[in-house]
């Protein structure tokens, strides 16, 4: 093979459902692996909240939109010899195909590494894939790939219903579904055909209820093949694997079945000719008990039959899980193989002794549970099917299934929702009914509740399609619950309960004690967890890896680390509001600790992340981030010897500050006291008043009349929110007494002990700052201005650095406030402050909305646009180095000649039933960054990368609330001058007509004639939507159908005029002429 010197790596872009942090993990590993080989790596990714886009990971980093055009410009500039597309998820793969089809790779002589275009097409194009499998004699479900609805129906006539529809080249099952009726088939097929980049869908026999088994396979150029791991989906076929609870290794397969599927996996990767990693999914004959109700044709079958379902010719979410489950660094090895290394040349970094050509042996059980966003999106459709809905996942490891499952549930961080939780709707006492057992996000709890109601495990297995083996394990947990309820608490039963994974809290509930009492008893009886190593080899070799999990056994392998050390508390599963940004911070914090000579210890439960990579920290505890497990770990390390860092793991970590403090466990950085001042509304109000810093007027109320009094004296609109949570949860802007009453009634029903806060809603310019304080000086990396006025959650706003519309005096005031607040709080480390500027007749007032004494989600962004290693500096401050000692001084960091714009990215097309209207509650799943030397260019890139850019020609659907109509006039004029066509709903159409512009009126009443608003979106007449609404959050019936249709049709939908206005300015301005160059060149 020709020696490679420069390789282009494509990242996966923003976090969306189906493509999350796992690709930062894989891309980071890959870049580091290639650099080890002396190869210059060029990385392109639009997502700033990634470790891979940091200096030091790749040699040359482009934070640019991931489009074929942009990548072509990068290739033209860099002339790489190779392109590695298999580590950037579906995005990377599809872009590689795009570049090849456009002739770019040939033109510049770029060799595709790892997986050829031919292979990608064979694996991704459903018709080719089916043919390949048939050719090598692998069984495939009955079905065909089709390119029209008519063909889909023909297929239905020959196979019969139900059928599964899978589009080619889409991600996370997007656009697919199960058709039970002919009407379903029509609907799903036409949508799937539209959404598939190659306009092809596979119509297939639906193997509902069959076991779903996956294999992670690796192959090198010498044709050496290994399997890393197999995984069994607890949820059978019918639920997307990303939405399934998964166990590794498989539990219910005999060796014969295991080897049958393993051998098939090897035949498939060989037939595809993949050099690198690949994931193969199979359906396998279910247990006879399940077959009884689900797979009728398998009832009397006496041998195991399998079908090949799908192959991902790349590193995938499952590979990330398999890596963390086994300790085998799949992405690292895949990258090395892609450049020509063979498995027997690559050392196994985990053991330090063996080679990459072996198959990991596990001596524990791993359980993964998806994290769904329905705690935020209560109105969403919670049913699970072939389209993935989870935003993230947790993983837990233990020596057997029950404790691994229980720890995974704890890791989900649903607060009080332990495995004991039951939905009130399931009834209590005499009224207890059988909970619904169809697949949804609550099924684990429903199974537990059913068994508690003495339902027969075999029956539960039949109702769910879940193998009886798993149901019996659930039954073991229920049996222990019953024992804990009835038997006296003695060492034996407590030991057994801990061995089954019961938390102190669960035991306390059942045995009628307090959690702290259980902990005390546990210690008296010497019942403490031990920590075992994940070593890839089931202890056969002495391993060097510092990767541990807790269990109740006899031997502890994690002896306290010597020397100065600190524990970085991670951020747990990726969810709305707490994304990859926090993992980014944790990783940098761990590295910074090492730079100052301290040992870094990480605790996290998220298998997708860089933080849980085996070589990120000096020691990794793969554990739930709750009080019990964190305290256990600290005790294991020696409570006096290790301090905790709570600033980087988002709300998860900050919530642990109080319990740590109460138990005299030390915190590095801002004290629990500072955190409490910021979180407790009354204390915070007093605090700001003392500093003479204004905040929006308001009060805490406990009743409806009280609230109405306050609101009337403040004047509507007012912002209402509970006092005890941050981050925009359950926050609303209300405009009337009625809305206020409705909100308060609900809020007080949920919690009557804490006040509801009613604040004047100031509709001004929202600004946010991140700052680092060492107690003496306050360094402010930058001030960011939000495009959307206050009222849209900061995480969903477009943020601009530096604040281009801020006056010098405004900036000075912000710096002054930030400095004084930081010092008065006694902060050590990072803070984030949100402010609002209200301008009136030339003078402006600035109010402080919120202070968070922790890293915010803007930290990666601000680090990238300022070039300041913000987390590194803050961590060193916490470790005792002043800013001055680090070479920094206080005040605002000098701005560079660039504009950086952070834009939110949504996954709304996947969340049926969720309103994509932007308000005070966060809805985005990810973010992108556009950076350039001027505002328009940076904005254009951010919009392109976020999928929010309008085409330069086309038509828009407008539906504007009365309140916003005046304000929208200039926008409509501008759109007209750009030659956009208009469709509009009744009132808006009348307004446009009165302005003298042509407009087509479409009704928003879906049952009153065609074309209606949804028709014009579905048939492609419009390319974008502008829709603003009046009123509070619920019920936002008005325009809901328009917004959902836009989400499903994947066209931009703007619910704030502010957003629409900047989008138009990007189109009308010079934004199209943006630069494409390495990030560091913008920073010059």
């Amino acid at each position: 093979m020709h020696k490679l010197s420069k390789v282009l790596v494509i990242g996966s872009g923003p976090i969306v459902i189906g493509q999350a942090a796992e690709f930062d993990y894989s891309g980071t590993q890959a870049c580091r692996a290639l650099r080890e080989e002396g190869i210059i790596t060029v990385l392109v990714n639009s997502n700033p909240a990634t470790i891979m886009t940091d200096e030091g990971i790749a040699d040359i980093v482009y934070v640019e939109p991931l489009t074929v055009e942009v990548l072509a410009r990068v290739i033209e500039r860099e002339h790489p010899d190779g392109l590695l597309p298999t580590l950037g998820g579906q995005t990377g793969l599809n872009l590689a195909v795009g570049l090849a089809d456009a002739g770019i790779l040939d033109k510049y002589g770029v060799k595709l590494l790892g997986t050829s275009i031919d292979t990608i097409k064979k694996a991704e194009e459903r018709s080719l894939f089916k043919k390949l499998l048939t050719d090598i004699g692998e069984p495939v479900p009955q079905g065909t790939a089709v390119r029209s609805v008519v063909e889909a129906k023909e297929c239905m006539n020959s196979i019969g219903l139900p059928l599964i529809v899978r589009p080619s080249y889409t991600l996370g099952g997007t656009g697919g579904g199960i058709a039970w009726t002919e009407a379903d088939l029509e609907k799903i097929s036409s949508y799937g055909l539209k959404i598939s980049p190659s306009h092809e869908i596979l119509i297939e026999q639906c193997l509902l209820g069959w076991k779903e088994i996956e294999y992670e396979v690796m192959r090198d150029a010498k044709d050496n093949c290994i399997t890393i791991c197999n995984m069994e989906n607890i949820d059978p076929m019918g639920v997307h694997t990303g939405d399934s609870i998964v166990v590794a290794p498989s539990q219910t397969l005999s060796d014969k079945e295991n080897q049958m599927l393993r051998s098939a996996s090897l035949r498939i990767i060989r037939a595809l000719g993949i050099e690198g990693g690949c994931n193969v999914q199979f359906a396998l004959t279910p247990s006879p008990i399940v077959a009884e109700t689900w797979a009728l044709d398998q009832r009397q079958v006496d041998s195991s039959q399998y079908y090949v379902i799908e192959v991902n010719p790349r590193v995938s979410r499952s590979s990330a899980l398999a890596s963390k489950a086994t300790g085998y660094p799949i992405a690292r090895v895949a990258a090395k193989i892609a450049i020509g290394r063979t498995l027997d040349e690559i050392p196994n970094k985990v053991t330090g002794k063996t080679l990459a050509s072996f198959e990991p042996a596990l001596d524990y059980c791993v359980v993964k549970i998806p994290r769904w966003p329905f705690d935020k999106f209560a109105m969403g459709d919670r049913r699970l099917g072939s389209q993935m809905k989870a935003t993230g996942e947790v993983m837990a490891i233990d020596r057997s299934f029950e404790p691994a499952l229980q720890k995974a549930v704890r890791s989900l961080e649903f607060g009080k929702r332990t495995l004991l939780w039951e939905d009130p709707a399931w009834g209590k006492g005499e009224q207890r009914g059988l909970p619904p057992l169809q697949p949804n996000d609550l099924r684990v709890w429903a199974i537990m509740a059913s068994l508690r109601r003495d339902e027969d495990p075999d029956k539960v297995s039949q109702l769910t399609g879940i193998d009886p083996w798993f149901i019996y394990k659930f039954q073991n947990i229920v049996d222990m619950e019953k024992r804990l309820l009835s038997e006296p608490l003695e060492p034996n039963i407590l030991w057994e309960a801990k061995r089954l994974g019961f938390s102190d809290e669960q035991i306390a509930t059942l045995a009628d004690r307090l959690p702290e009492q259980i902990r005390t008893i546990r210690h008296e009886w010497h019942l403490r967890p031990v920590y075992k190593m994940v070593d890839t080899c089931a202890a056969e070799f002495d391993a060097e890896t510092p990767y541990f999990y807790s269990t109740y056994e006899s031997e502890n392998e994690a002896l306290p680390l010597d020397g100065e050390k600190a524990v970085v508390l991670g951020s747990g599963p990726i969810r709305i509001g707490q994304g990859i940004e926090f993992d980014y911070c944790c990783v940098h914090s761990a590295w910074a600790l090492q730079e100052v000579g301290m040992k870094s210890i990480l605790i996290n439960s998220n298998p997708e992340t860089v933080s849980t990579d085996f070589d990120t920290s000096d020691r990794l505890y793969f554990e739930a981030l709750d009080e019990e497990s964190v305290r256990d770990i600290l005790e294991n390390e020696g409570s006096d010897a290790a301090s905790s860092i709570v600033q980087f793991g988002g709300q998860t970590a900050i919530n642990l500050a109080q319990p740590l403090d109460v138990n005299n466990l030390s915190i590095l950085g801002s004290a629990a006291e500072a955190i409490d001042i910021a979180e407790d509304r009354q204390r915070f109000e007093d605090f700001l008043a003392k500093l003479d810093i204004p905040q929006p007027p308001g009060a805490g109320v406990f009743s409806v009349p009280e609230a109405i009094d306050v609101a009337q004296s403040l004047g509507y609109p007012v912002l209402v929110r509970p006092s005890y949570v941050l981050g925009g949860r359950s926050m609303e802007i209300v405009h009337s007494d009625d809305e206020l009453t409705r909100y308060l009634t609900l809020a007080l029903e949920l919690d009557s002990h804490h006040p509801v806060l009613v604040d004047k809603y100031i509709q001004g310019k929202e600004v946010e700052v991140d700052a680092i304080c060492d107690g003496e000086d306050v360094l402010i990396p930058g001030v960011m201005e939000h495009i959307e006025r206050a009222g849209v959650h900061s995480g969903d706003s477009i943020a601009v650095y530096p604040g281009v519309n801020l006056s010098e005096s405004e900036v000075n005031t912000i710096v002054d406030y930030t400095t004084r607040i930081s010092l008065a709080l006694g902060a050590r480390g990072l803070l984030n402050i949100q402010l609002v500027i209200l301008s009136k007749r030339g003078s402006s007032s600035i109010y402080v909305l919120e202070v968070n004494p922790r890293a915010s989600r803007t930290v990666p962004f601000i680090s990238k646009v300022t070039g300041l290693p913000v987390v590194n500096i803050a961590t060193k401050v916490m470790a005792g180095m002043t800013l001055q000692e680090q070479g920094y001084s206080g005040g605002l960091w000098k701005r560079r000649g660039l504009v950086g714009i952070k834009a939110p990215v949504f996954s709304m097309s996947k969340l049926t039933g969720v309103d994509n209207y932007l308000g005070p509650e966060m809805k985005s799943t990810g973010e992108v960054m556009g950076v350039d030397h001027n505002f328009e260019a940076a904005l254009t890139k951010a919009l392109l990368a976020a999928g929010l850019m309008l085409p330069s020609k086309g038509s828009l659907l407008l539906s504007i609330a009365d309140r916003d109509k005046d304000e929208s006039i200039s926008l409509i004029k501008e759109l007209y001058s750009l030659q956009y066509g208009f469709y509009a709903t009744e009132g808006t159409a009348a307004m446009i007509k009165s302005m003298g512009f042509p407009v087509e009126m479409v009704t928003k009443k879906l049952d009153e004639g065609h074309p209606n608003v949804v028709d014009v979106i579905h048939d492609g007449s419009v390319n974008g939507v502008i829709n603003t609404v009046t009123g509070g959050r619920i019920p936002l019936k008005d325009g809901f159908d328009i917004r959902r249709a836009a989400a499903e049709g994947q066209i931009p939908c703007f619910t704030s005029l502010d957003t629409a206005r900047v989008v138009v300015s990007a189109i009308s301005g010079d934004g199209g002429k943006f630069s494409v160059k390495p990030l560091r060149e913008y920073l010059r």
Partner: protein
Amino acid sequence: MSKKATLILEDGTVYRGYSFGSERTTLGEVVFDTAMTGYQEMLTDPSFAGQILVFTYPMIGNYGISEDDFESGHIQVRGIAVREYCRRPSNLHSIRTLDNYLRDSDIPGISGIDTRSLTRHIRSRGSMMGILSTEMCDEDALERLKAYPRYNGTDLVYEVSTEQVYQWPAVGDRQTDASADIKQGSYNIVVVDLGLKYNIVRILSQLGCRATVVPYTTSLNDILALHPDGVVLSPGPGNPSLLGGVIDVVKGLIGTKIPLMGICLGHLLIGKASGAEIFKLKFGHHGGNHPVRDLATNKVYITVQNHGYAIDDSTLQGGFEVSQINLNDDTVEGICHPDLPIISIQYHPEASPGPRDSSYLFDRFLAMVGKPTDA
């Protein structure tokens, strides 16, 4: 709650857990195996005779016991140690539970112990004898263990080898019939049973061979009288140095130039017969994930291993060469001779349990058998 059980190692280390299977006392060499599936095949593998088997995989018994996964007529291990055994198995093929099978075979098991700790102990201290008991106090047990014959000094092949010559496939027998439907045997292969796993003869018969399985005490002349097209020396338990008689037979077989395939113990005997020395590994190779490099092709295979002894490569003589090596510790995994039709491998191409990647070796052997030799 089950009865308590104790596993005591010869260095005095004690593991306390609960009994399952038969409630009695058993003694043997304690070894661990890292395979994650295949406990039924392992239990019935005669190479584990004389040993107490520790499964590093913590949950054993999940898919029960099937009718088709026996590797010999009965359980061969002396006892088993697990972290957790599964009371409620689930699998299409399961006909009974592991506990039930052990009980009926009068084999004891211990569960609930920290098998990882035990594994680490053996890894660092080396293989050692152990006693598993539900009835004896620690002192008595240790006493009994000390007086018990060592693994190295026991002729275990004697315990496991067939007493009668038999044919495979044999008509009317489920074990052999199931694999006999492919084609009728054209080659006549003699299999010397040193602790034969059924899957070896299953594969031979699938490949169209008629196998005649003979006791390990069969003389060279009696083997030759069967007019074999090829001879397979099976795997088996224990110390190869105790098998002087068989080694002489192997020497004779080598001389006849009849194609010869030695697997595991069979391979060690070929080594011995050719004059090479054998040594005992610290804790052996037992698992389904060992990488082996074929030096001829430079390719790497994931192999199934189950052996406590290995050939010392520096003592190879008479033209024998190393053909395959283990990538973990560079030990010999196969030997060959440029002029002799011999396939001699330390690991288990018959798999069962484990990856089937090396089954090509049987094809290679039969290619030798099919070639006319000058004998």
